[in-house]
């Protein structure tokens, strides 16, 4: 069954800065999936576990987080903290017998790089394959 996943991206201000310029027009031109809803944060270290779970409650099929490189976070350890919280949510999904692949962390360089687009495409493909959220 083919479906269009509802994917929520939480991205740090720095990583997504240029990606969101011009109303995200450039993103679309580069093939970033339109079904990915971006929420920008001052730092992914600000992202709470509850916010990721809330996204699932609100109907998301998947959530992913894009933060700074592990050793190059603007806020020193923000993206490392985010990665730990993403790992915690993956464990919670497993406890609920749900695919942990529905939550994922990416560490990417600042600005609009091909990797930012590829991450979105990869996440989209992965969730298309897994199917809709069981929630």
């Amino acid at each position: 069954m083919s479906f269009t996943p509802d994917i929520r991206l939480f991205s740090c201000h720095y990583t997504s800065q240029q990606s969101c310029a011009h109303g995200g027009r450039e993103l679309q031109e580069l093939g970033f999936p339109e079904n990915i809803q971006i929420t920008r944060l001052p730092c992914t270290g600000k992202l709470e576990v509850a916010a990721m779970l809330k996204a699932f409650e609100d109907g998301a099929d998947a959530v992913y987080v894009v933060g700074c490189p592990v050793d190059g976070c603007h806020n020193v350890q923000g993206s490392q903290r985010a990665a730990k919280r993403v790992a915690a949510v993956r464990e919670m999904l497993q406890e609920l017998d749900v695919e942990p692949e529905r939550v994922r962390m990416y560490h990417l360089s600042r600005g609009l790089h091909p990797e930012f687009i590829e991450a979105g495409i990869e996440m989209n493909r992965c969730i298309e394959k897994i199917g809709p959220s069981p929630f």
Partner: protein
Amino acid sequence: MIVAERKPLAEILDMVRDCKKILVLACRGCVSVCSAGGEREAEILASLVRLGMKKNGKSCEVIEGSLVRQCDREYIDGIDQWQGQYDAILSTACGVGVNFIANLRPDDNVFPALNTTFFGGSVEQGIWSEQCAGCGDCVLHLTGGLCPVARCAKSLMNGPCGGSVDGRCEIDPNVDCIWQMIYDRMGRLDRQQEMAKSAPIRDWSSAGHGGPRKQVREDLTVS
């Protein structure tokens, strides 16, 4: 503080499987400090219960609330503010809090969301370790402040057993032998000679072996 950890979700979901309205009740005391049952953890748990119930095809309303503590009757009275909004309380307090709700709310269903683990402290961020067994007859003045009751696997009172090797306990090479630590510390404090004295045979009735413990302070009671 009292240290606790969340029970497995499957166990929690099984407890509340027939509930239609659940109040996830946080405690802002010890379990908040050890990040097991404070407001943040209750918010996460409420979300997980909603997701779990939905996945299991059950319709359920889950609300969140919190009390300053769940181990004082004055604060338990605060549950009145959610009257009529729940058919079960899922408490993220320690076992004391769950007992207090059960004691004081005879008609309310209450379930424990946590396993209460030990009396301990945070040795570093995200890591807690047991320091006290609440045995009711403290011997810390004899042991340089380090507790052999809580921190020796056998609760020995007169030095280490034969399983102490290179300062480590035989149960786990990552566990310090507390008697080695006591010996070293007493040496640093120039008090090792005190250790030559044998500890008397211990009366464990104060440790709960004599039934549930109770303490009365006449100077504080009001009736």
